[in-house]
């Protein structure tokens, strides 16, 4: 039985070859595309479970492809980039990627990221709160609905899980590592920039003034803390 259908998008044929050999060896079903355009077409036709997307491609670049994929479906996307620069990583996550891996990478790392990305909607803390209300924020965990500053906001699955984890520990600082492992999985823990991107997005959606957060507070050197509901 297939572990999942993975679409490999890269303009370099050798990389596609090695990906195919490896992923097939780990019982994934592998599809290949050479360009962003081809990838979009194939994603619509074949409905893969995950897309491995090269950031630097001629024509429609990786970021644009990522946005287009995101607009069309909830498919898991891992961006592969040669530039180990935070700006690129943030751009990838902003474009809707679930994760990114810097080239060159060890195959174990990539497989772990693929497994984590495929493990969709990670289960939140068992017996966690079912609802939450605080300064301008209302969360219905069962209905996965969030109202902030009096209006309904749409959160991505990762943002929602991040918020759930913070709420479960409301009033206490949660370390970077705890947050990463709770939301992304046990293979994570050393990616503080993930948190920065997602916390920023979350703040933009739920804080009255994202530059002066009142709900999600930074605990310097430690992590983040959700302000305890007043009263």
């Amino acid at each position, binding site marked *: 039985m297939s572990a999942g259908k993975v679409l490999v998008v890269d303009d*370099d044929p*050798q*990389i596609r*070859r*090695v*990906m195919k*050999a*490896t992923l097939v*060896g780990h019982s994934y079903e592998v599809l290949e595309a050479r360009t962003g355009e081809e990838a979009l077409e194939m994603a619509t036709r074949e409905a893969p479970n995950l897309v491995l997307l090269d950031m*630097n491609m001629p024509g429609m670049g990786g970021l644009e492809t990522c946005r287009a994929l995101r607009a069309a479906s909830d498919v898991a996307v891992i961006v*592969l980039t*040669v*530039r*180990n*620069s*935070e*700006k690129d990583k943030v751009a990838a996550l902003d474009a809707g990627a679930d994760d990114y891996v810097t*080239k*060159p*990478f*060890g*195959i*174990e790392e*990539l497989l772990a990221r693929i497994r984590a990305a495929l493990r969709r909607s990670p289960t939140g803390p068992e017996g966690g709160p079912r609802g939450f209300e605080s300064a301008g924020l209302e969360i219905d965990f069962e209905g996965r609905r969030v109202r902030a500053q009096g209006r309904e906001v749409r959160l991505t699955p990762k943002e929602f899980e991040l918020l759930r984890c913070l709420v479960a520990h409301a009033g206490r600082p949660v370390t*970077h590592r705890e947050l990463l492992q709770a939301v992304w999985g046990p293979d994570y823990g*050393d*990616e*503080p*920039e993930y948190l*920065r991107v997602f916390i920023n997005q979350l703040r933009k959606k739920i804080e009255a003034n994202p530059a002066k957060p009142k709900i999600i507070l*930074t605990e*310097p*050197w430690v992590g983040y803390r959700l302000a305890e509901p007043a009263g």
Partner: protein
Amino acid sequence: MKALRFAASLALVAAIVAVYRLLPVNNTTVALTLLLAILGISAWWGLAEATLASVLAVLGFNFYFLPPVGKFTIQDPQNLVAFLVFLVTAVTASQLSARARRRAAEAEARRLESERLYALVRSLELTGNPRKTIREFLNRVVQEFGCRGAAFFYRQADEIFRTGPESQPVTDHDLKVAAEIEHAAGEATGDRVASPVRLGMRSLGSLGLVAPLPSAHTVRAIADLAAITIEKARAMEEASHAEAARQSELLKSALLDSLAHDIKTPLTSIKAAVTNLLGEAGVADRELLTIINEEADRLNQLAAEVVAMARIEAGKLHLEKREVPVEQIVTGALAEVQGLRKGRPIAIHAAADLPAAEADPELAQQVVKQFLENALKYTPEDTPITVSAERKGGKIVIGVADRGAGIEEHERAMIFDRFYRGREHRFETEGTGMGLAIAKGIVEAHGERIWVESERRQGSVFYFTLAAAAGGKEN
């Protein structure tokens, strides 16, 4: 020509005398007619012709018309008056007309010179090469003004250009002296002139011409034109150099980017393949595959560092400065050395009220990472490592301290040089020797300081400073 005019003048006077001898007219008519003739001769031909005609007219008038007719009578005062009137008329008229003629000739010459100047201006082609422009200019001057030779002393390059067939040109000495003249025009000596070529207060050199010379006025105009033309050529040359330099920088930058990409692409395939094989390899193969894997990592790091170093040396390091919490810089660096750390404890000493730094977050993080890497690589595994961050005035000082062997005093300055390795680590292959040089490049691009304090057998502390953000806020 001259002789013909004398003959004609005499003939005219003789003709008048002969005609009036036959006609019954009074003496006054004869005298006035002769006067008219002399006026005409002096106006058209000149003083000499008119004077000769005057003498003949007085003699003729006296002999044939003044009584006693047929005889020269000098004593009669009337004779003297007539002679003087003829002479004065001849002189005055000839001078007046000669002046008018000279004026006309001058005006004509000036018109011609203006025309030539205009032709010179029009014939000059704009080039971005001052030397070529000077040569072209001299050729055109010789061509348009018909000078036998022209020379130019180009002061900036201390070079003399010459043209024209003249074998006895304006001397180098005269040209160099003329270049120093502060007022506008140079002086003509004999058949040559050396004129300063100035643009405002600045001397560009001098222009020498060999006869036939245009007027002093025109020489000055030519010199001014030379100044403007050469200056324009120089400006164009500078502009094109700047453009060429800019293009080459762009190309270099693009090459570096594509180099980084092109090396990493095959390395990605190699690393993915070898790590895949490592997962299922037996003991014998595992060792060899590990070597391939590690060397792929080294090549990758080498490529990254070569590109970083090249950027720093080309002054192309692009800083994206913003306010960044020191915490982010340090934790980011710690996360990056996670693999190398192998669980070794690293203590962090940071003031609680540390302000944010004004820096490029990624590059600042790279400096801390480099310090940490050095500490992790070059000090015993059981010794502690401490990261510190504190505020000193308007600066934030970040340090990484180890309890290793320390660095000899004479080596402390050199370890920030490219390819320098500590004496004891010289033959180890790990690393490229560029790490600290890159850190130094990054810190200096920020306009900040990097240094090391060390004591033998006590350990070393690597420091660098960052500007504290003006707002001084924590996050």
